[in-house]
């Protein structure tokens, strides 16, 4: 779903009834956090620190910071990442996921700057690389820096009963192909999932989309189908990806796929331009097409609540303070 501008005042209208609230919620992607309480959808207006703190799990996804990029589409990717991280701090998540393209050219100084800006948030950040992070050294610098070791590429962890899996689909890419997980990783994934209860919610995060969004631009992962086959028996699977610098969604049975906005620059919708390169927008609208994703989980039997927040909605909320 594409983000829409938050309309101040609508939620606080004294004439707002349940029907209007639901209509508003169906239209707005920004500024509303939907959660399920006892099976009934409840919308909470999101304003700076008045954001309701859930008792369950809350985490944030950021993506495609491209530190080192400085062309016309965004001359200051550092500043927009900083704006994103300021908002992350305000949301007080338990941790952050970065779905890759942390840097633009895999340079050490770019990783340094990214780490410094992301470090505005003092909690744990779990990274997976994008193709811009593994240029020239198979990702050794990236894995050493962000995973603690070149041997630690893909991994999983648990939080509040949710099983998180970070996958890498940007290594050993083949000519003419898409993203690629590879046999070793697929075997690891199968083992990791084998003995888990099907009622365990899964969150899979990886850079390139795990469904074929647009083949002409290489937007997909060659061996994703096999990975997804290991997840089919699970009741709740959420796949969080980056790479395409825009929010697209797909639902396939119990699997919900979400791609994410970038904090650096937008890219065109599939097929809307000759190529998927950085898309220039008027300077005043740049922060409307960049953003982060806020995800909450209230506990068993409720789905993950996903809310995309553009950087300008963040700014507007702060301005209203």
């Amino acid at each position: 779903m594409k983000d829409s501008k938050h309309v101040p005042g609508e939620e606080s209208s004294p004439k707002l009834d349940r029907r209007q609230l639901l209509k508003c919620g169906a239209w707005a992607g920004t500024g509303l956090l939907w959660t399920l309480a006892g099976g009934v959808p409840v919308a909470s207006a999101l304003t700076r620190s008045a954001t309701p703190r859930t008792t369950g799990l809350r985490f944030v996804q950021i993506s495609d910071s491209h530190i080192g990029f400085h062309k016309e589409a965004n001359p200051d990717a550092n500043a927009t990442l900083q704006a994103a991280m300021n908002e992350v701090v305000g949301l007080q998540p338990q941790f952050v996921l970065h779905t890759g393209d942390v840097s633009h050219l895999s340079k050490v100084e770019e990783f340094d700057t990214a780490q410094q800006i992301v470090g505005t948030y003092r909690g744990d950040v779990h990274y997976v690389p994008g193709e811009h992070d593994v240029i020239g050294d198979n990702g050794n610098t990236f894995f050493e820096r962000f995973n603690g070791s070149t041997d630690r590429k893909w991994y999983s962890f648990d939080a509040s009963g949710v099983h998180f899996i970070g996958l890498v689909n940007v290594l050993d890419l083949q000519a003419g192909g898409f993203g690629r997980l590879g046999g070793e990783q697929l075997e690891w994934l199968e083992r990791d999932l084998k003995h888990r209860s099907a009622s365990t919610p899964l969150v899979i995060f990886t850079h390139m989309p795990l469904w074929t969004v647009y083949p002409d631009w290489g937007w997909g992962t060659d061996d994703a189908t096999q990975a997804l086959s290991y997840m089919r028996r699970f009741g709740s699977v959420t796949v969080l990806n980056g790479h395409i610098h825009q929010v697209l969604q797909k639902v396939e049975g119990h699997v919900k796929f979400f791609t994410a906005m970038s904090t650096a620059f937008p890219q065109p919708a599939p097929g809307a331009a000759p190529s998927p390169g950085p898309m220039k927008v008027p300077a005043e609208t740049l922060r409307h097409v960049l953003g982060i994703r806020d995800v909450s989980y209230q506990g068993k039997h409720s789905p993950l609540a996903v809310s995309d927040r553009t950087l300008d909605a963040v700014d507007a909320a702060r301005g209203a303070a």
Partner: protein
Amino acid sequence: MNRIIARTLALVVCGWTAGVLGSASAGEDALGSQPASGAPVIVKISNFTFEPATIKVSPGTQIKWINEDDVPHTVTGTDPKSPMHSAALDTDDSYAVVMGDAGTFKYFCAVHPHMVGTVIVE
């Protein structure tokens, strides 16, 4: 006297010839084995495409790739024996290779693998 003159002349000629040959070698080293008359064949990298995607050149031709996109690309041979293995090319960066033996050399962008090209040397 005549012998001295003849010897001096011979030395001058040898020296001049060596100088010419030396500078010619230096010139060849600077240009690689590119024929003196050959300008490099240019392949543009634009809109996530190698243009032209397929080129035919004769052995000894230099090919130069120039990246015009706002994102980095590479020129990476699909065969380990390929002469094409560039570093990441940022906007306006270029990469040149002199093609040696005859053959068909496929390559792609290691960052955006959907981008493919072919060099045919014959």
